[in-house]
């Protein structure tokens, strides 16, 4: 089949959605289809979010099948449209009024939110079927738009390259250093561990300077390593040598880090409000789920440091949990229509 994968992108911003669409193209081609990625630029500010949606509405696409992914690419019109939803415009839904949303209780915001809900509901309902990347995304779609969908899991980047290794003396936290990822929880948790543990905080972001200052204030600067952005091969080895992986974002859509940790045979420490991460991390089975407080996270890290054999057992269970992940069922489901 000739298949167009539609994805929206804010220029110069590369995240999980952009990586996943590229890998979907590769997977479809591996299965003998002709696949092309169609991208239009987007902007997330309230004033302009409808512009890109309308642009998608007017884009002519000749293909046997169209797979739309993130907001607002699912506004594309096609007689055979499948949606594999990565996310909606969360600032207008579960993030409404939050620190990273420009939707507030003004009349302008409420009018825009109402209209966006209407547009989303209609454009998504056009699809012959709706899949999502996780149950969390499916649940939001039902809660806010009344649409049913099915979760369709896919393997994370580096899935084939990740491997296990010794259970070292550090906790790895690979994440963008932004507010919704809550990297500060890891730094603060370090001050609440009674073990001689280091925290390797790999990634870049706007919070980097504040995190360094926080580490000084908490008295853990000498135990915090912040290598910034790391290359794929370095990241693979960081996973392999970690005692465990800390991943405590707020209400994550999916969370590649969790799956990568499991692929490397490492347990994951997370929080009860981490969203899609909890579809994989089971407390005491594949990791530890705590309250989103530095004290609780610190205690969890200490527990793993005190009992590396238990950490290994949790990691092995995690690896088993993701063993069946593959692009094959994703391609099969999406091309079925």
């Amino acid at each position, binding site marked *: 089949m000739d298949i167009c994968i539609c994805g929206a992108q804010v220029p110069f911003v590369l995240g999980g959605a952009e990586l996943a669409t590229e890998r979907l193209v590769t997977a479809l081609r591996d299965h003998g289809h002709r696949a092309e990625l169609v991208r239009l630029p987007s902007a997330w500010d309230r004033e302009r979010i409808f*512009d890109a949606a309308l642009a998608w509405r007017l884009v002519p696409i000749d293909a046997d099948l169209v797979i739309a992914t993130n907001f607002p690419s699912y506004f594309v019109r096609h007689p055979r449209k499948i949606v594999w939803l990565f996310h909606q415009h969360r600032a207008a839904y579960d993030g409404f009024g939050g620190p990273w949303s420009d939707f507030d209780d003004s009349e302008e915001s409420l009018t825009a939110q*109402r*209209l966006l809900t209407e547009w989303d509901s209609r454009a998504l309902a056009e699809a012959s079927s709706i899949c999502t990347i996780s149950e969390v995304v499916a649940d939001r779609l039902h809660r806010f738009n009344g649409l049913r969908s099915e979760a369709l899991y896919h393997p994370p980047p580096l899935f084939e390259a990740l491997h296990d290794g010794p259970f070292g003396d550090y906790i790895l936290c690979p994440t963008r250093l932004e507010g919704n990822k809550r990297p500060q929880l890891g730094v603060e948790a370090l001050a609440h561990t009674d073990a001689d543990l280091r925290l390797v905080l790999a990634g870049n972001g706007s919070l980097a300077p504040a995190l360094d200052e926080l580490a000084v204030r908490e008295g853990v600067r000498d135990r915090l390593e912040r290598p910034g952005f790391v290359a794929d091969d370095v990241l693979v080895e960081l996973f392999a040598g970690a005692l465990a992986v800390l991943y405590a974002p707020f209400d994550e859509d999916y969370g590649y880090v969790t799956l990568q940790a499991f692929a490397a045979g490492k347990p994951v420490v997370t929080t009860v409000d981490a969203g899609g991460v909890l579809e994989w991390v089971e407390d005491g089975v594949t990791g530890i789920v705590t309250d989103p407080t530095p004290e609780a996270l610190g205690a969890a890290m200490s527990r793993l440091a005190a009992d590396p054999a238990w950490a290994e057992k949790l990691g092995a269970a995690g690896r088993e949990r993701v063993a069946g992940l593959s692009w094959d069922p994703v391609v099969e489901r999406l091309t079925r229509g």
Partner: protein
Amino acid sequence: MGLPIVELHSDRGPSQRPGLLALLRVLHERCDLRAFDPNRPAVWARVATSTGSIPPASLTDTRAGLAVSLGRGEQPDRAMSSRATAFIVETVEEAERLGDRAIVVADDAIDGADHPPLGPLNRVRRRAALGLPDAMVVDVGLDDDFPVAAPAPATGLALAASAAVRGPAVVVGLALGTPMTTDEPTATAFGLRDGHEVIVAHPGELLRVAHELAANAPLAASIGRGATQRFAAAFDARGAAMRLLARLGTTIPDPLRRVRERLDELATPVVDERALRALAAVIELSPDHRRDIVGAWS
């Protein structure tokens, strides 16, 4: 360029079908709606408010589309059946009998753009912004000033977590996606199903059940969604007008036509800020035709 001419064939005297009038009002935004004139050489389409109002000449003119409103239970004869492009009917059941040429406009249909649906999140935030209680339940009775024109009950229905509603106001509640309880006579009169688009209760229990509904967020959301779906299927004169135009074929001038059609698909009012933004972008490309474009848009 200019708006396409649609000729209206109607019976004498005032119409007993407010829903049909609402549809014609919306149609008038998109077309140049004119009374029948036997000397007019050509029209784009014809709309007849009854089978008896169509002159023989219009039946034989196959160049123009023809939409005919059927009375309840009325069957089109063979000539009408082969000639008509669309049938305007009152109920979903009648539409199912006539197939994809049928456009449903209930007698109580209203313009959905006047009362766009508000989901639970939007209602919660609006109540918070106005300092209203979160569990706000409104009671709209038969004596309230309805249908449609009265702003106060409609505003209450737009903001409420749930509502107890009897009588014609229930249509506005359906449009707004308000989770509603109603009595048996109202449900029967408007063809509403218990547990789908409304909760039916004894008249003396309506308010209490409405409070229970407000406290049950998943059920309230489900009933609210069912309400908007029911409204779109049977009571939305604007949606029906758009479907009718699609059946008849649209001739709004390019380049605006496709933009306007795409906005119509998403139920975006003509005067919405987002729609005007798109209009402004198109006008910039065609300043010489500014007047025609604005005319076609509205």
